[in-house]
């Protein structure tokens, strides 16, 4: 199980999570769009994730679930 579960098709690509991640491992996808037509967030380096959940708390749409 991953440290971060992303509800890909719920993400609206607002980018707020990318601004609060202390490890700077979150980016909005550059090459794909989800079912809603947004560029969803992706984790570029899951190993660096410290499960701080800042992204999940910042996300208005409860896209992210965090595990340790």
């Amino acid at each position, binding site marked *: *199980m991953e*440290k971060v579960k992303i*509800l890909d098709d*719920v993400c*609206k*690509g*607002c*980018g*707020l999570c990318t*601004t*609060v991640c202390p490890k700077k491992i979150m980016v909005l996808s550059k090459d794909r769009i989800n079912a809603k037509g*947004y560029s969803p967030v992706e984790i570029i380096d899951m190993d660096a994730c410290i*499960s701080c*959940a*800042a992204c*999940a*708390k*910042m*996300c*208005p*749409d*409860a896209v*992210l*679930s*965090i*595990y*340790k």
Partner: protein
Amino acid sequence: MTTVFEKPKRFISEKMHYCPGCTHGTAHRLVAEVIEELGMNDRAVGVAPVGCSVFAYNYLDYDMYQAAHGRAPAVATGAKRVHPDNLVFTYQGDGDLASIGAAEIVHAAARGENITAIFINNAIYGMTGGQMAPTTLVGQSTTTSPYGRDASLCGHPIRVSEMLATLDGAAYIERVSLHDVPNINKAKRAIKKAFQTQIDKKGFSMVELLSTCGTNWGKSPIEAIEWLKSDMIPQYPLGVYKEVD
């Protein structure tokens, strides 16, 4: 693996109609988290307003009302008087609460109604397309103040938390912000204190949450957060404005 963060059970968030980056979703989640942590899932009853959050009854899985514009505190009064042991809250925007609903929120607070108002202040009318609100800043451009709000023409914004704090029936009033994680954490604590105030029957409680409306401010979600910090907080200082023992 242990769970560090999962959304609360009573928050139905998969199909919310809010714009990308709109902090309504965050506010909804905090309300649902607090109600769950207080063990009040079965007894929470919410009153949705007219505004972007008119469909809050679809996203918050409690018995809910949808109220006429501005009248949520009166509806909540009726609901709470019938079932005083329920946790009754209103969820209102700045047009709903501070414009058409000004009388209702003042009198609910004055009566010391044991209800909690969750006040989403984003300085604009969202759902109807970006008109001026009672909390719109001087100089702020909206669809009904296209040259920027002119104080000599239509006055100054209302600081609701400060205003209601003057009422003896108001037991707990705090203004918080949703612009970053530390402030979101503070906002959650404020919501918890407000609901606890209701549970302890101390009187009226309100949390004013400074929020963004990127779409009608003409800003991206991240730009909107910045404007909240730079322009809204100086006008609407954060802090506790009323707290009775």
